[in-house]
């Protein structure tokens, strides 16, 4: 992307002043290399977001920003309901509450290695993944509504998880304000047999080694040390969230004009927060959030079961579970005043700094774990929320590496079989029902996650705590 239009505020902050219909500036957090590699279309999308009614302070783009739908992926925007603010189905995305959870195993890499292959094969068998991967849970109408209202708390009550997990999940495992009655029958039908399934695309379950510690003090409080083994799960609200996203996108496009909203891009479909459609979407979106929280809790339970078979004394404890496709009501300090805002994070992670009241007592002194998924070959990062991020981007950080090449281009360049073999030679076991799916997710198709998190740290969005290296990756 051409940076000439931007004012460089500091090495990692770029600002595009409002012009035309923009109500606020676009602010991009990235180093020179990352911003130059950003697609012009992502910047155009951030500019469009800046025109939406009720937007507060800025349209933000995280260091992993790229071309998305309506909102850029890596986009953050907050809206004030008292100033005509909107809620956007496109601003949350199709995979509502897609997110990451990391669980500590208490095991060392040396304990895993002798059983690595059997563990990988067993995880592939026990974790339903990919198209046609069927779960073992079928929900009837009563269970469905209970799940949509109860989230991970529901899963724990049903025996798929442990009570102690809940305080380490956003919203303590249950998103308040969910309205299962706002979720269509078609969305519920799509989810009936999908609980406890991983999905496909960039979703995965990984067994990872802690390869490097950046902040020993925070790492100790998080309970991680070099050569520890952790399990990380990346997935979301499955078919239910996708169906809700599709249905409300259409409804919001059709009703935008009657709500007096001019859409620069139909994918930015939105409705006033204080409107019937807006409220109905929020109720359905929060129900989908509970679906995602329940789903990751169940998958975590399955991972526990597999680990218990190989390592009877292992105990998988949740470090944290955080979503990166969300709209959350939060209180933020804006020009000296506390304001209740609807913060959209589309491919961006909430990153509360030290002292935030929503954090459990053990984490409150240091801040929230911010879980960043990388590619299957290069690794992932655990960051911690930085107090400065409140002023920078409403306490938000990046969510992953971001793609450098399209799936299309990746398929031309790599063979799935060769990637599996090459990674195996590096000690990384890939298990997937589809070699083409592996090629589409080739490590080389992603940007350098190390550069993304380094830029996030320099920009004051979140600080690095640990780098994780994959040992096993189960992909859908």
């Amino acid at each position, binding site marked *: 992307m051409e940076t000439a239009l931007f004012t460089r505020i500091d090495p990692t902050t770029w600002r595009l002043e409002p012009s035309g219909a923009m109500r606020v500036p676009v602010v991009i957090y990235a180093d020179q290399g990352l911003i130059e590699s950003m697609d012009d279309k992502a910047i155009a999308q951030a500019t469009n977001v800046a025109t939406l009614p009720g937007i507060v302070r800025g349209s933000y783009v995280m260091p992993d920003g790229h071309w998305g739908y309506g909102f850029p992926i890596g986009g953050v925007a907050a809206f004030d309901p008292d100033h005509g603010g909107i809620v956007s189905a496109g601003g949350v995305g199709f995979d509502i509450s897609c997110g990451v959870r990391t669980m500590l195993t208490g095991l060392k890499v040396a304990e895993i290695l002798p059983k690595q292959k059997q563990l990988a094969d067993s995880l592939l068998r026990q974790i339903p993944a*990919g198209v046609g991967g069927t779960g073992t849970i079928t929900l009837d109408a009563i269970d469905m509504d209970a799940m949509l209202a109860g989230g991970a708390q529901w899963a724990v009550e049903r025996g798929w998880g442990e009570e102690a997990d809940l305080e380490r999940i956003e919203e303590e495992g249950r998103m308040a304000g969910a309205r299962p009655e706002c979720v269509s029958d078609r969305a519920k039908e799509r989810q009936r047999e999908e609980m406890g399934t991983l999905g496909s695309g960039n979703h995965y379950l990984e067994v990872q080694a802690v390869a490097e510690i950046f902040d020993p003090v925070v790492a100790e409080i998080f309970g991680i040390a070099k050569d520890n083994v952790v399990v990380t799960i990346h997935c979301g609200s499955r078919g239910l969230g996708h169906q809700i996203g599709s249905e409300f996108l259409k409804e919001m496009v059709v009703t935008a004009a009657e709500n007096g909203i001019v859409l620069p891009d139909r994918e930015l479909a939105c409705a006033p927060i204080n409107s019937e459609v807006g409220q109905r979407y929020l109720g359905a979106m929060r129900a989908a959030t509970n679906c995602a929280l329940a789903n990751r809790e169940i998958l975590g339970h399955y991972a526990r079961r597999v680990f218990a078979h190989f390592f009877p004394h292992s105990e998988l404890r949740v470090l944290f579970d955080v979503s990166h496709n969300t709209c959350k009501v939060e209180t933020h300090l804006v020009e000296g005043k506390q304001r209740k805002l609807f913060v959209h994070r589309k491919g961006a992670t909430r990153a509360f700094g030290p002292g935030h009241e929503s954090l459990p007592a053990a984490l409150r002194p240091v801040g929230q774990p911010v879980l960043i998924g990388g590619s299957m070959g290069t690794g992932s990062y655990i960051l911690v929320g930085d107090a400065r991020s409140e002023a920078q981007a409403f306490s938000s950080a990046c969510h992953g590496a971001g793609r450098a090449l399209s799936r299309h281009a990746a398929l031309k360049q790599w063979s799935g079989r060769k990637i599996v073999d090459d990674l195996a030679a590096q000690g990384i076991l890939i298990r997937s029902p589809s070699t083409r799916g592996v090629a589409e997710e080739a490590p080389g198709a992603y940007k350098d996650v190390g550069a993304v998190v380094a830029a996030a740290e320099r920009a004051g969005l979140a600080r690095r705590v640990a780098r994780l290296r994959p040992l096993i990756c189960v992909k859908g």
Partner: protein
Amino acid sequence: MQAFGAAPAGCRRSSEFTGGGRWEHFAHDADIGVRGWGSTPAEAFEQAAKALTAVVTDANVLPRSEVSVSCSAPDLELLFVEWLNAIIYEMAVRRMLFGQFMVQIEQGRLKGTLLGEPVDVPRHAPAAEPKGATYTALEVTRGSDGLWSAACVVDV
């Protein structure tokens, strides 16, 4: 959308001709675009549906059973997204893939027939699961050659 270059540049399979129609995939940063061409909007919709199935599998999909869908929208472009979303829904709840499509469009209302079979993981080796059709790069248009094209990005 012209920004992606004139077809067939960037096509994964520019030579998929069926009954006078054809389809392609086009690149999106995170996901994938589908485009179908035909002598009518209905035919372009049918071809784009083939591109949607090819997002999931390269394997042949046998026409073992038939599913009917219908949808409506205020304009052709929104109707195209509804059509793809109707297929995605049937793929998800029936755990099926579809390889042949028949579309009729009358006054903003679409009636479609999908022919396919249950997902066979070893044979189909499904690569990705479409989550939803999007309004990104959405365009249903008639070119100067008289051919209709229907395109949008699909979230996978």
